């Protein structure tokens, strides 16, 4: 799952930097490449760690790429996922609980929410989609497919928004018209998660 997410990031890193250059300093793609390295390291087959420990370690390593707010938020998300109660075998309810725990960890660090033109515009609907799939007894593959779809729509929605957080905030309405680079990164991660599950099941 992490491998596919890392690949999705790698394929699009130039686009991520280009998006960032409208509102930031144009290095988001470079930061995300280093995040992708950490995601790939996490799934080292030699590792026999507990799933939650893998999330926690990955979160810490993602924070360690020193990529400013992006890596701090993503690292907090993965580290938060690792704080969920759960075993190595996860059903859709368990998956929803893990993603909720990630989101909760972020909300402790930032007040950013939907509409602020940040990663949260993609992340919040994606996690909500997993919750809703779990509520209607769907399987994990379906849940992640819906999450990827919701994240993608969320990232698209940032085009019409004005940035309220981070450096882009100071550009105000000049940010309208461009997708938020962080939200696009989140949509790529979920696209990778979904591809991993849905291709494996085919």
């Amino acid at each position, binding site marked *: 799952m992490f491998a596919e997410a890392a690949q999705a990031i790698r394929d699009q890193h130039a686009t991520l930097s280009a998006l960032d250059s409208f509102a930031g300093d144009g290095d988001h793609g470079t930061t995300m490449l280093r995040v992708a390295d950490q995601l790939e390291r996490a799934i080292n087959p030699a590792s026999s760690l507990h799933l939650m420990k893998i999330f926690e370690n990955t979160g810490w390593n993602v924070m360690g790429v*020193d990529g*400013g707010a992006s890596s*701090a938020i993503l690292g907090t998300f993965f580290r938060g996922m690792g704080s969920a109660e759960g075993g190595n075998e996860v059903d859709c309810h368990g998956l929803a609980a893990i993603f909720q725990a990630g989101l909760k960890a972020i909300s402790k660090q930032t007040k950013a929410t939907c509409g602020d033109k940040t990663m949260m515009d993609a992340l919040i609907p994606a996690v909500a989609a997993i919750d809703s799939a779990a509520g209607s007894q769907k399987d994990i593959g379906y849940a992640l497919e819906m999450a990827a779809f919701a994240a993608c729509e969320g990232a698209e929605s940032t085009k019409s928004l004005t940035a309220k957080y*981070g450096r882009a905030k100071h550009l105000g309405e000049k940010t309208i018209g461009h997708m938020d680079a962080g939200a696009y990164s989140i949509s790529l991660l979920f696209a990778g998660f979904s591809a991993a599950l849905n291709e494996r099941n085919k």
Partner: protein
Amino acid sequence: MKKFINTPEHLVDELLEGLALAFPNKIKAASPGIIARQQSKPANKVRLITLGGSGHEPGLSGFVGEGMLDYSVVGGIFAAPGAPKCVEAIRNACAGGSSALMIVLNHAGDVLSANIAMEIAQHEHLDIKAVTTHDDISGGSDPMDRRGLVGFLPVYKVAGAAAERGHSLDECMAVAVRMEKNTRTLSVATRTATHPSTGAPIFDLGEDEMEIGMGQHGEAGTGRMRLQSADRTAEVMLNMLLDHLTVAKGEELLVIVNGAGATTLMELLIVFRRVAQILESKGIRLARSAVGEFITTQEQAGFQMMIARMDQQLIDLWDAPANTPYFVQA
């Protein structure tokens, strides 16, 4: 891009290596991305930690040394370091039961990493407090919307001097907070910097334009206008600062004019001259001053103008000795 670099991936490592080699009697690379004093303080004195991205030299690691910082945690180019390195620096600073004060410039990534690190430090019962600097007046009325610009310098200086004199963590914190609350900065940019990793310009500005309120990374400010003379620019900016800090006749100010990277010392001095003249005409005392480069953004042209209201204790701490790579005072 015309820069003397090797590979973009190694920019930060190589600049830190250079810094440590250039000032071996003052600082050392304690571990990758952490600059520390060559000789650490006695354990009973408060240690000062800061964090921030690279590409702004001599900020922030250039102020590690006697009388100022104990540790600087260094991030990527224009990007905050992550929490893991901050935690490592805090653990080093607090080893053996010492207390520490973390000084955080208000930028999204720095604040996030500092907050996460502070939570972990508190969980480990380490004796640490944090102060956030937000001196930029272009951010709006909410202080938390205001960015941390060159106003970090007097905070490092007075808190560092207090720590050196053996003041407690609470006393150092109080001095840092008072200094911070009385500091205001405004920046102006006339030409963009290029990002040293990507080679791309970080903003566009017309040949005959200037922008007041530009951030440290070329974040847009509030007022874009035709380029003005040094005197006129100094007048506009100083009046905005004096208004914001509500400075009264007879009060004492510290003034810093900080070059953004490509603006010459000649220009900075011409601007400073006008600042001093205006203060004198208004009956405001210029208690102390500094003109030079303390935090830069590559070859961005422009400067930051900083004023701070001083009292006798703050002046006394500002005057205390310091021996760091880029701030030395006997």
